[in-house]
């Protein structure tokens, strides 16, 4: 039971990570900084509960806020310049954050025990849940409550004008600009929103695993983050969730018996899927194919680009 709850935790946290990349991908931008925002959320909220003794909820909120603020800071210079600059800037940012926490040592004595981030040794004593009598079921409940809340918000965005604006920028920047949309503002808003979501995910990750170190936040984690929405397709938030379940549940957990070759398969899978289905596995055609199988009218022609 603990094992399955553990997998549920991982899937929940990674879904938040994937959704943070999803929001920005809607505008057609690819960011590899998600691991950096995740790390900021994890360290900040961990430091707040451990060193400052804050309650978990304000700690998560402040961590998310600071992650969002850094997303804004990174997005601002990178998104002003057109094109592929964001990838370069975000991959560098991710490593800057990782190296910062690699060097960060902030040890304090609290209740006779030395706690806090200890540079290369990692940050060990994030025991808020255990110290306050949370069961694992409660933790999984909290994670999934937040996952569903974020998914609902993103789903709701698609029902209102904001979603249409985001998708318009993603579909055709020139056309979107011609209809009066401020491209930079929309992209930076999406970037900031993504940072907040990743920050929440990071805070939950830090508190549910109780131990974090800089190795967790490598660019591979950022690759996972963008691969979920890309493999799952940008049609809806459910695609991201399904992709997380497939990659974390099947490839990483289910194929544990083949050892580290799983990561090889992950790399190969991305290359293959991008060649065969450049718009993700669950793209417009996929839904049409299913509808056809069910014998219903299709929506061919209304394919996302």
């Amino acid at each position, binding site marked *: 039971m603990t094992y399955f709850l553990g997998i549920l935790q991982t899937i929940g946290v990674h879904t938040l990570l994937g959704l943070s990349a999803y929001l920005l991908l809607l505008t057609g931008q690819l960011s590899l900084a998600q691991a950096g925002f995740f790390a900021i959320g994890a360290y900040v909220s961990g430091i707040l509960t451990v060193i400052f003794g804050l309650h978990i909820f304000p700690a998560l909120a402040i961590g998310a806020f600071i992650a969002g603020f850094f997303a804004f800071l990174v997005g601002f*210079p990178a998104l002003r*310049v057109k094109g592929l600059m964001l990838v*370069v800037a975000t991959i560098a940012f991710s*490593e800057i954050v990782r190296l910062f926490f690699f060097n960060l040592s902030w040890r304090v004595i609290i209740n006779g025990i030395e706690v806090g981030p200890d540079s290369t040794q990692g940050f060990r004593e994030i025991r808020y849940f255990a110290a306050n009598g949370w069961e694992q079921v409660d933790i999984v409940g909290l994670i999934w409550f937040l996952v569903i809340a974020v998914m609902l918000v993103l789903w709701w965005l698609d029902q209102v004008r904001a979603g249409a604006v985001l998708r318009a920028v993603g579909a055709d920047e020139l056309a979107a600009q011609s209809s009066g949309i401020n491209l930079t503002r929309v992209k930076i808003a999406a970037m900031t929103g993504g940072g907040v979501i990743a920050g929440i995910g990071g805070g939950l990750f830090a508190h549910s695993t109780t131990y974090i170190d800089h190795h967790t936040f490598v660019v591979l984690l950022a*690759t996972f983050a963008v691969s979920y929405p890309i493999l799952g397709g940008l049609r809806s938030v459910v695609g991201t969730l399904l992709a997380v379940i497939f990659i974390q549940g099947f490839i990483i957990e289910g194929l544990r018996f083949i050892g580290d070759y799983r990561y090889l398969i*992950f*790399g190969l899978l*991305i290359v293959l899927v991008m060649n065969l289905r450049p718009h993700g596995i669950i793209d417009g055609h996929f839904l049409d194919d299913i509808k056809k199988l069910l014998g219903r009218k299709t929506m061919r022609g209304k394919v996302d680009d």
Partner: protein
Amino acid sequence: MNFDYIDVIQTLIDGILFGSIYALIGLGFTLIFGAMHKLNLAYASSGIAGAYMGLMSLTIVGVPVLMVFIIGPIVAGLISLILYFACFRFMPRGNHLAPLMASIGALFFIDELIIHATAGSPLSFPAILQDSYFIVGEFGIRGDLLMIMGFSLILMVVVMQLLYRTKLGLATRATSQQPVAALLCGIPTHKTNATTFCLAGILGGFAGCLLAASVGILSPLIILPLTIKGLIVTVIGGLGSIRGAIIAGFAVGAAEGIFLLVRGVNERDIYVYLLLFFFLVFRPNGLFGSTINRD
């Protein structure tokens, strides 16, 4: 902080000499970007993979040491060609995300492959001219770094000649400027792109071999820093500018040396990466980039 101007100048000399490797990687990124207006994030990993294959031919087959520096680049060129077909050739032209994502997948595929083949431990690489050391006045110049610099400069001249003096170069530049018009003029654009990838891969293979020879070890851990620094060089030089990439390569090498001297090895890379943001804020088009924002 107790270092005088001699330390600073010595660091600058070493940094600029070592920067020739970054210049080579940046040049490769620029060639690929120029050809297709796309980033191949797996590029540096293909260079390192080539260096590994060169090392393998030394340890397993027992070829002469010099052959490592021939086999490595050739294999790297082939890997780069495979990357072209795996990640770029069959992608829809207007889709920028798919090839980028595929090249990230390929980066981790090559990375994991190397980690598996070597069990994750670094291998020692044959050093060249390790013992030679030249004293010029108060400063010392490492012989191996000097050789790296000389070798890189020769390669850069060869690439420039290829681009600006041969028919192949003309085709490459034409494809880079206007792919459709080039195709209409009878230039086989796909073939030209494949050649560019191959050429860039060979450069990357040389860079990988030279890097490994100067450090003395080869480890998968250098792939990501090399990728990021190569990208930073490309951006600082101005996306698509060959001259800019070469100059920015030496500049980044020098800056890295200074940061190493001032802040130590653990924090060095933070400041090198921050350099990118400095340029993004104050000079987003790089040193030699065109003022028009290119995609």
